């Protein structure tokens, strides 16, 4: 799809050509030039879609948190009604898919994954509401057993990965040899049946790779939930951020950019590992008393200085606002910190982190390096997830944050769609 201005220009070229104002060769050259721009317009649309999807994701999480905030005060039957809404929605979507014979990948994957997640949510909330006792393993086995026919309807790869994740969790968490054996059998079935019978493909490598990634992810999750303090989930995005900055700095040709960026990455990793090694520090020391000590102020001040130096280096308004806004809030916080509630500090550090990631994405868009964009977006999603589960902010503030950031992200997506794409 052409941009309206390009469309107008092409019409003009046609008229100029007819009036012999320009030669055929010149007309072709101009067309080629703007066709290449129209090609990059596709990327811009993709970026707009990604931001919009992230915005919608954030808005949904915000709504979930609002409901969660009010959850204890709701009557049991109201909670039950809210619980069944997602699963009812997934049944309706599946009925539409079956009835209208919408056999496209988008329909199949979205319907299967929605149903699986809706069943997890519904059963988990019912168990929580009635204090129904049982193991995590039994819970996931029940969910999978109820959802197996979905595979016949949808032949979804996302469903397979989702159930793979659940099976791995169930396998680790379950008690008793019989249950473990049953789960292992189920896992083998999951591995063997769908791809060979329903898809009739021999792409075992992809399946094995997906399985390994799922297993690795599950192992990491279990290890983290058992071995580390919950604050580790907040530290994880910081590792991603440090990696982005460090690799980005290393890949640039200018030493003036490379040195401060690697310094930021090392500082970030140091702080991360320091906090990760002594998790209680994060909860009891940093958040309560250290905010008043010179060491903490020096560390954050150093980060602020590096951020400002990066700010001065980048010429575009985007970078400047991404870095200046959280830095300004942080500076203000430093001055009046004694009068601020404790939740302001994680909020401001989150702002700085998001500022960096937004700058990384924008930088990737400008220099046409996809991995900057991808890494920035992955970091962004990780932060969103970490903050969703994180307990360092009150739930009401988290909900408001998700709703506002959802609006901002959708706004960015809309604005991206409006902008003229910068030429390479």
């Amino acid at each position, binding site marked *: 799809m052409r941009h309206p201005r390009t469309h107008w220009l092409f019409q003009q070229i046609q008229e100029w050509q007819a009036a012999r104002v320009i030669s055929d060769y010149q007309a072709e050259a101009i067309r080629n030039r703007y066709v290449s721009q129209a090609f990059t317009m596709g990327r811009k649309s993709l970026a707009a879609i990604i931001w919009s999807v992230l915005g919608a994701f954030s808005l949904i999480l915000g709504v979930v948190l609002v409901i969660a905030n009010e959850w204890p005060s709701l009557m049991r039957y109201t909670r039950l009604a809210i619980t069944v809404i997602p699963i009812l929605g997934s049944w309706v979507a*599946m009925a539409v898919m079956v009835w209208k014979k919408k056999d496209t990948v988008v329909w199949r994957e979205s319907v299967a994954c929605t149903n699986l997640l809706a069943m997890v949510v519904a059963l988990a909330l019912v168990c929580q509401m009635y204090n129904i006792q049982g193991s995590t393993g039994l819970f996931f086995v029940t969910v999978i057993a109820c959802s197996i026919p979905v595979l016949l309807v949808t032949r979804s790869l996302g469903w397979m990965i989702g159930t793979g994740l659940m099976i791995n969790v169930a396998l680790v968490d379950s008690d008793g040899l019989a249950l473990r054996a049953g789960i292992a059998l189920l896992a083998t079935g999951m591995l063997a049946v769908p791809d060979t019978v329903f898809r009739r493909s021999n792409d075992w490598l992809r399946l094995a790779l997906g399985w390994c990634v799922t297993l690795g992810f599950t192992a990491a999750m279990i290890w983290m939930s058992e071995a580390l303090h919950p604050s580790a989930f907040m530290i994880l995005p910081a590792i991603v951020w440090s990696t982005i900055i460090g690799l980005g700095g290393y890949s640039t040709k200018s030493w003036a950019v490379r040195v401060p960026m690697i310094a930021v990455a090392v500082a970030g990793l140091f702080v991360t590992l320091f906090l990760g090694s002594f998790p209680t520090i994060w909860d009891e020391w940093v958040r309560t008393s250290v905010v008043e000590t010179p060491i903490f102020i020096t560390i954050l001040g150093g980060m602020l200085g590096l951020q400002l130096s990066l700010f001065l280096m980048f010429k575009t308004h985007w970078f400047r606002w991404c870095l200046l806004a959280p830095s300004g809030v942080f500076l203000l916080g430093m001055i009046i910190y004694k009068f601020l509630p404790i939740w302001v500090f994680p909020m401001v550090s989150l702002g700085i982190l998001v500022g960096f990631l937004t700058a990384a994405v924008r930088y990737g868009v400008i220099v046409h390096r996809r991995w900057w964009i991808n890494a920035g977006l992955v970091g962004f999603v990780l932060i969103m997830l970490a903050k969703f589960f994180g307990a360092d902010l009150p739930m009401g503030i988290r909900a408001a944050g998700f709703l506002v950031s959802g609006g901002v992200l959708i706004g960015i997506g809309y604005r991206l769609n409006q902008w003229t794409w910068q030429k390479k």
Partner: protein
Amino acid sequence: MDLAKKITSRLRRSVVWCRQWPLVLVAFAVTVGLQLIVLTWQVVGSEWVLHRGVTVRHKIDPADSYDFFRGHYFEFIPAVFRHSFPSSRSILAGDQVVVGPTDRQNTQWAILATVPTGNVPYYRVSVKSSNAGYFFLTPPFRRIYLDTDAMAAVTKGLSKGRNGQKEPIYLIVKHYKEHAMISGLQVGSRNFYQK
């Protein structure tokens, strides 16, 4: 010839439809049916016990806990399952025993020789371990989900009460024969029932 081709094509499509479509429809129906049955079973079973059950109080001694999937929760074992019982008969780990009240007020609980009749509450629990004439039971309850007010009260009750001592915390359980459902919590004199 064209007509023959058309008929053959239509027949082929009908065969394919007959082969594939009913399978998809059946799978869809089975999915909705299974999920509906499981959720309804859990909800109706729980509501039945909550409405028809006998109320029993168990003294508990909760321990604060946190994990990624469940968030903040209190893990506890009711005192009746926590203590070791002297064993007068040969009971091995894995055996099932019946634990029930020995008085009409359901306050004193012990191992029963037989399953009680009528609407008398009881637990059918397995033996966790057995050693030197004593055996330990596997508790049927391990956790309870609390709202903010109840959690604050429990935390306060755990540290100290009004008299500088820990407040007694009771688990309120609804019993319908051997089916049991946690319905609330009592910290000192305050009740936290699920709405």
